[in-house]
């Protein structure tokens, strides 16, 4: 590749190029920022994200491939990149004050966050299994480190170690799957895999096993049952600001890769893979929601809730092999990821606002349900944001969660799986119990909740909650945008 070609290709993936370079520069700049003023690093990191966001949006119409087919820039990648960049911005907003008060503020936090987002954006644009693997690692390694950034706090160390070991294990599954797919088809490029499969002469059993192992590897990342074991411990042990970012970013990136790989490369295997996906989705929805009922710790509850939501999105993936439904599969999954992102950040911002360190004259850490008693009277704004988030998680109108679930269920029924849609509906009803319990505590119990007055947390909680409600009114154009994102993919 000549220098000129290289520049052309780097220009094609400009948002990613800029963000990578900016993260490297920020690493150096951070050295010259005094300890008490790390807010500057946070601000600069956010600035980089905003520039990348502007670039992504300004190039929204472009559909091309770069770096010899390693990267696909299309509506799908654009849509996902917007989600990643927004969650990066929200991730910085909820982290800033939290890090200071927990005594774990360091400039590297923001740099690692940027690198993780670079990995996620590459993941959504990757068109080759090798790129998917590298992007997976690039987004995961910063998250392993961030989960453990509160060392020597034991729970943070435990979270980092568990996440790292299971993540490495999952990467092994993914690589093994990739090797088998390569062995069967002679290529790692998604488009060549499908053309080799349809032209015949491919060892199908190898290919199916390979696809299954890839599913396992990515299933760990998005936390579907039975690959969810790490989630509650990691979500609970990691610093809350990291958990908030991880719950959205890593899940969305995992689904981006699943959608791209399955819809693009594995439609010929739908006969074998659809039952597997069906079972994964059903078990994830049931187990996630049922175990969440027993949780009294809000971080653990949200962890199980995030597992359940992985199940809902998985549900849309089930009919991925049916040509006419595949477009809806991707569109509804993208839409739901957007809804999940906003809802999740609204909930986590409130959680972080209520969390406090043990000691300091209190005997709780602000993370159990009882700590939410009386929030409705003392902090009506935060309580309202939390209520909106809980309603959206259940799927009650007028919230984005309702519209998202509607599209998901419509896709499943179109695909001819009414049983699965029924499971989705029933588990949503079950989930209402533990989500509404939080609301009950906030409004119907008396208490003295301890809340931080931190402007960025308030802003994030309120802005995302307002977004959840307002965007649900304008959901039609939003869904159309998601659908258009897909047309170019298929």
């Amino acid at each position, binding site marked *: 590749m000549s220098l000129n070609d290289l520049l052309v290709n780097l220009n094609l993936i400009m948002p990613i190029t800029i963000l990578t370079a900016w993260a490297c520069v920020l690493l150096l700049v951070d050295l010259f920022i005094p300890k008490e003023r790390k807010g500057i690093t946070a601000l600069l990191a956010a600035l980089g994200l905003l520039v990348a966001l502007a670039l992504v949006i300004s190039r929204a119409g472009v559909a091309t491939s770069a770096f010899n087919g390693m990267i696909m820039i299309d509506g799908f990648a654009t849509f996902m990149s917007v989600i990643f960049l927004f969650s990066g911005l929200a991730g910085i907003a909820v982290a800033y004050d939290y890090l200071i008060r927990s005594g774990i503020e360091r400039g590297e936090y923001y740099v690692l966050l940027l690198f993780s987002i670079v990995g996620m954006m590459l993941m959504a644009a990757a068109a080759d299994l090798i*790129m998917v693997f590298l992007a997976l690692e690039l987004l995961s390694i910063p998250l392993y480190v961030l989960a453990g950034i509160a060392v020597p706090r034991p729970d943070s160390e435990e979270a980092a170690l568990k996440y790292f070991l299971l993540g490495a294990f999952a990467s092994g599954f993914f690589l093994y799957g990739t090797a088998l797919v390569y062995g069967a088809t002679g290529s790692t490029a998604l488009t060549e895999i499908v053309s080799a499969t349809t032209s015949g002469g491919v060892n199908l059993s190898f290919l199916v096993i390979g696809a299954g192992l890839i599913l396992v590897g990515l299933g760990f990342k998005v936390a579907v049952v039975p690959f969810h074991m790490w989630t509650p411990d990691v979500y609970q042990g990691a610093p809350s600001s990291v958990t908030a970012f991880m719950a959205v970013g890593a899940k969305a990136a995992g689904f981006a890769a699943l959608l791209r790989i399955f819809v693009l490369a594995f439609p010929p295997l739908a006969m074998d893979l659809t039952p597997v996906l069906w079972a994964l989705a059903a078990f994830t929805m049931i187990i996630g929601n049922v175990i969440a009922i027993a949780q009294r710790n809000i971080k653990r509850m949200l962890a199980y809730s995030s597992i359940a939501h992985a199940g809902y999105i998985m549900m849309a993936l089930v009919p991925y092999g049916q040509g006419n439904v595949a477009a809806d599969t991707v569109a509804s999954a993208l839409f739901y990821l957007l809804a999940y992102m906003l809802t999740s950040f609204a909930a986590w911002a409130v959680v972080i606002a209520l969390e406090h*360190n043990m000691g300091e004259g209190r005997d709780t850490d602000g993370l159990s349900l009882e700590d939410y008693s009386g929030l409705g009277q003392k902090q009506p704004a935060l309580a309202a944001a939390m209520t909106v988030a809980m309603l959206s998680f259940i799927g009650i109108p007028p919230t984005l969660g309702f519209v998202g679930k509607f599209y998901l269920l419509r896709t499943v029924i179109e695909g001819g799986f009414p049983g699965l849609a029924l499971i989705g509906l029933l588990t949503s009803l079950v989930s209402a119990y533990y989500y509404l319990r939080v609301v009950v505590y906030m409004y119907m119990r008396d208490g003295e909740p301890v809340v931080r007055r931190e402007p960025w947390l308030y802003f994030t909680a309120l802005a995302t909650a307002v977004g959840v409600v307002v965007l649900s009114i304008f959901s039609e154009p939003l869904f159309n945008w998601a659908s258009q994102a897909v047309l170019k993919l298929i």
Partner: protein
Amino acid sequence: MIPDMILFILLAIVAVTSALGMLLSRSAVYSALNLVLNFGTVAVLYLLLGAPFIALAQITVYAGAIMVLFLFVIMLLGVEQLRKGSALPWQQTLAIISGLLLLALTAYVIFIRPMTLPQVSPTQLGFGTPGAIGEILFNKYLLPFEVTSVLLLVAMIGAIVLTGKREPKTKT
């Protein structure tokens, strides 16, 4: 062919002996040094098979960098001597049985059913040379190559963040 054969037999003897030495030696340092010898002979075998790039990578990466790391760890931790007796008593029997099984399976495929092995296409001229690998690495796989370097940078930052010195904590 004959000189190749003689060379191969000599190398094979050294490789197997050093591998055995690595496994059986009770001193960790001797084990590590035996491993270096093994890496070296295997590298020459790669050369004989016409894979110069893998041979060089074997020497520089495995016999060089990784072995230095091994020796460092062994010497820093000070576990040069292994305790007498093995920690898992059933391990030896199990290892012998599974080793024999693997040997039997390999022998079966090679001597009894050689036809089931897929035909290996003859390699093109220049396949696997450093030049050819560089060509493909800097053209088709340029982006993965670059992303790998970013990945290493991130891993390095992560290691420093997690193990670096911290000031005494302000509050818990």
